[in-house]
């Protein structure tokens, strides 16, 4: 079992990378890679079903020999928390490959970069050790540099690459310093040891907490270190921004759950105000900034800032439902934001613009697209019945339970901003007058229809029956709450 769930995906991905390097024929490569990524998805589904939901400890683990043992052994493991993120990763990549099929920009190097991202993400989420997590976290920069730099659309992509690269490097160097401190305290970097008590003084723990928070908040992203996100999203190709919004932003949240909460649990109570205040500022600023944008991708990028920060409010509410809601929001945001970016990408392939001033009346020309996109935007608005609604409601419940009245009222008002720009997106693209130049546009292909409908169906399913994820998560909520 350990070998199937932990080693098999890595070996399968390596095999498909090798085949992509060796064979020139694009058809064969596409089918091979697509089947491999689907296989990995099936493997992780199987893993998800066989997980014991009554345990929060490591369930599958394997030790890999012949690796440098600098900060501990190289151990890969799966527990309840990482299983969700692995499932999300494995779910999104076959869709990305399918979207890229038959595109002009698609070539072998592009597929290699995508497969490398998946490989590093799997290592990142299965790491049992903070050091391996950190290495995989930085390794993702390498293929992402190629994806944004080479297959991005416009000239400004270089600026975006710079911002993406150096914000992330800054965060990872701060984390490196924290890593040294943690290694000095515990003598090990295994995540499971972080729950033990440490002998730092109160002040030292506060500084450590702030440093870790800075390191991970760049990835989430939070004000004032969020500027790389809209740039990178706008300049990246569709698949690149799907991966960014879908999974890479979740690395920050995952890291906070793994490191920040266990190590600094004694001082979280005193720093809660600061962290939640920053999250609130980024919600308000994000929704205001999103309203003013004319680029569709930038709007969605700011909306993802808003949603991730709503989740952060739940995380630091330190209530049992808050933490559950944070994880649930991350997963639902991964689905919704990637669906929205796919939609924008499909529009861009047809019209070669993302500017909402040049769009309008697409409901008459592209009925299938309009229905699905309308549903996705509604989900982004967190209408009841979609998955985002469940997460946000849980966050606000936990905030009110904690009796932080002012903050919860402000947060609820600020999330109305998201409703505003979602309405703007719908009006400007699907309704309104039809431009004459748009008339030769054709509707979705079969496989594009498949991509969007799968995402929409999943979002609706999670909205109607959220217990499939919430039930295994309750254990985690209790566990972190008891800290």
């Amino acid at each position, binding site marked *: 079992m350990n070998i199937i769930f932990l080693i098999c995906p890595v070996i399968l991905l390596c095999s498909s990378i090798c085949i992509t390097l060796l064979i020139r024929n694009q058809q064969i490569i596409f089918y091979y890679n697509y089947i491999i990524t689907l296989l990995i998805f099936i493997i992780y589904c199987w893993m998800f079903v066989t997980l014991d939901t009554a345990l929060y400890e490591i369930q599958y683990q394997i030790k890999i020999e012949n690796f440098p043992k*600098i900060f501990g052994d190289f151990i890969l493991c799966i527990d309840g928390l990482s299983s969700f993120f692995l499932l999300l990763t494995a779910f999104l990549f076959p869709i990305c490959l399918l979207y890229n099929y038959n595109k002009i920009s698609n070539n072998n190097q592009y597929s290699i970069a995508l497969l490398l991202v998946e490989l590093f993400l799997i290592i990142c989420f299965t790491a049992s050790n903070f050091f391996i997590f950190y290495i995989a976290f930085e390794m993702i920069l390498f293929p992402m540099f190629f994806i944004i730099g080479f297959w991005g659309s416009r000239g400004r992509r270089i600026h975006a690459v710079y911002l993406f690269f150096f914000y992330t*490097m800054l965060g990872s160097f701060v984390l490196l*310093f924290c890593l040294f401190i943690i290694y000095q305290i515990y003598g090990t970097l295994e995540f499971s040891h972080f729950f033990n008590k440490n002998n730092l003084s109160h002040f030292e723990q506060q500084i450590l907490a702030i440093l870790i928070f800075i390191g991970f908040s760049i990835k989430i992203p939070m004000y004032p270190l969020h500027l790389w996100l809209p740039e990178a999203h706008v300049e990246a190709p569709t698949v690149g921004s799907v991966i960014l919004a879908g999974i890479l932003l979740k690395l920050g949240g995952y890291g906070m759950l793994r490191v920040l909460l266990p190590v600094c649990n004694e001082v979280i109570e005193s720093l809660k105000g600061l962290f939640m205040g920053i999250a609130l500022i980024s919600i308000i600023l994000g929704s205001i900034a999103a309203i003013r944008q004319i680029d569709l991708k930038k709007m969605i990028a700011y909306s993802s800032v808003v949603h991730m920060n709503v989740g952060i409010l739940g995380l630091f509410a330190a209530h049992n439902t808050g933490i559950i809601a944070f994880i649930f929001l991350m997963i639902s945001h991964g689905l919704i934001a990637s669906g929205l970016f796919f939609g924008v990408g499909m529009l861009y392939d047809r019209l070669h613009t993302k500017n909402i001033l040049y769009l309008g009346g697409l409901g008459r020309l592209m009925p299938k697209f309009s229905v699905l996109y309308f549903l996705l935007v509604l989900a982004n608005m967190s209408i009841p019945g979609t998955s985002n609604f469940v997460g946000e409601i849980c966050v606000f419940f936990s905030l009110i339970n904690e009796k932080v009245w002012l903050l919860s009222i402000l947060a609820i008002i600020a999330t109305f901003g998201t409703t505003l720009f979602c309405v703007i997106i719908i009006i400007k693209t699907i309704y309104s007058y039809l431009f004459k130049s748009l008339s030769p546009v054709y509707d979705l292909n079969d496989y594009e229809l498949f991509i969007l409908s799968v995402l929409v169906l999943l979002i609706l399913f999670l909205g109607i029956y959220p217990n499939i994820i919430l039930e295994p998560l309750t254990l985690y909520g209790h566990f972190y709450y008891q800290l």
Partner: protein
Amino acid sequence: MANTNTNIIYTTNIAENNIGLLFISILPVYFFLFLVFFLTSQRSKLLNVEYIKFNNIEFTRTKLISLIFVLFNIGYIFIEFFKLFPEFRLFTNGVGIQFNGKILVFELIAIGLFISLCYLTIQYRTVLKKEHILLFYFFIFAALNILLQTNLMGIFLLIEMFSLAGYIIVAGIGNKIAVEGGLKYALMGMFSSAILIIALVFILLNFGTLNLIDISILERYNYLDTTNSNLFITFCCIFLLVSFFFKLAIVPFHQWAIDVYRSASNISFIWLVSSSKLIIFFVFLIIIENLFRQTSENLKFIFIFAGLLSLFIGTFGGLIQTNFKGLFAYSSIVTVGFIIINFVFYFENPEKAVTLSFMYLMLYLLNILSFFFFLSKVEQKSLIFGDLRYINNIVKSDKIVGFGLIITFFSFLGLPPLVGFLPKILIFYNLYQANYLITCALFIILSLISAFYYFKIIKRISLFQETEITYDSTFNILNVRKMNISEKIIAFFIIFLNIFLIIKYQDLYQQIELLLK
């Protein structure tokens, strides 16, 4: 710490080591025979014919290939000799020779470096004159013999010979600017040698001998008056350090390096930046192993000061360079900063300090050689070519060259799957562990800034966009030669090494730690 291995083999009886004497004496004889052969064989009465005969690519290539074979042979002799005599000393009273496992490692690394440098010189297809190749012979001869010396006077003389060849190599190959650079190099090098002489005089005053073995024995059995001589040895060591800082271009003694490197021609730049750093670092290791036992720990602050300053100046100086030789001058200052900071651990844990700095220098040299290997495929306009604009958008011309350059620069930058990452991390961690918190934080921040200019080159290689201001037709017609199969194999090997050395890093580290004992 002092009395770990008291029973050293101290051989004064030459009769026992006759075969060893024979083997060691082969080395100069080899060189001598080769020189005679070289000078006498190719004489021609007609001057014009001689000019054609001696100044073409074929001539350079054959001579350098023969030099490569000589180097292989010398390496083989060293290994065979080590099997016979693992610990060997000769004429230890005067200017003597010693040979053991540690020196074997140093010699083999130096030989490997020289072989790859000869290969690169062939790759660059520059036409070298007869005299230039002779200079390379001198350079290699001096470099391989410095490491065998036991006497500080012998080390001093051979360093002079080594750097004399270096000055003329810089001045001789290239145009008038190179001559100016060579003159600067000669002046500053002689100044640093003068400081070394002062240090030697003080050492002679204190110990009464210049023999390193005698000095270590005197220190080991405490023949010296400790309280007084401790201070005096520290005083000597400061002079010694200043001289070596000059030669390694560590801040605040770095000013000559940038001018010299920038004005040097390509070939001489490659020879200088790699081999002089390596050889002088090895000599430094050999000397301080015997001298630093009783010095005061106040020397730590010199290392911290020098390391931090060189990192600072290396990072901020490199940001505005448009010439890659100037850029690598600053980058080598950063490297030297990373190397010299490790010697703060030398007083508690010498093995760790030596191993860390050794690894860092090795991997830096690997990267710099691979950079010049890939650059040799770009068609050059002149010998002094060094403008970064020549490598604009090289990925579009040739994918292997471009990707190899990108990998090399990511490795310089220190991104995880590549080898440049772990030595940096280990240095940071050891600094943190030894409670140099602020130094560690400053190192991390400055290495982030130095990442910026490596990233600028990566951008230039892969994503450069021409505008009307930057457009220049001379740089735009880029000619990249196609690779042979053998060159392709070497390129893939370099990329492979860059990615997969990190997996075997632990073994490598332990092996080197073992070898350096």
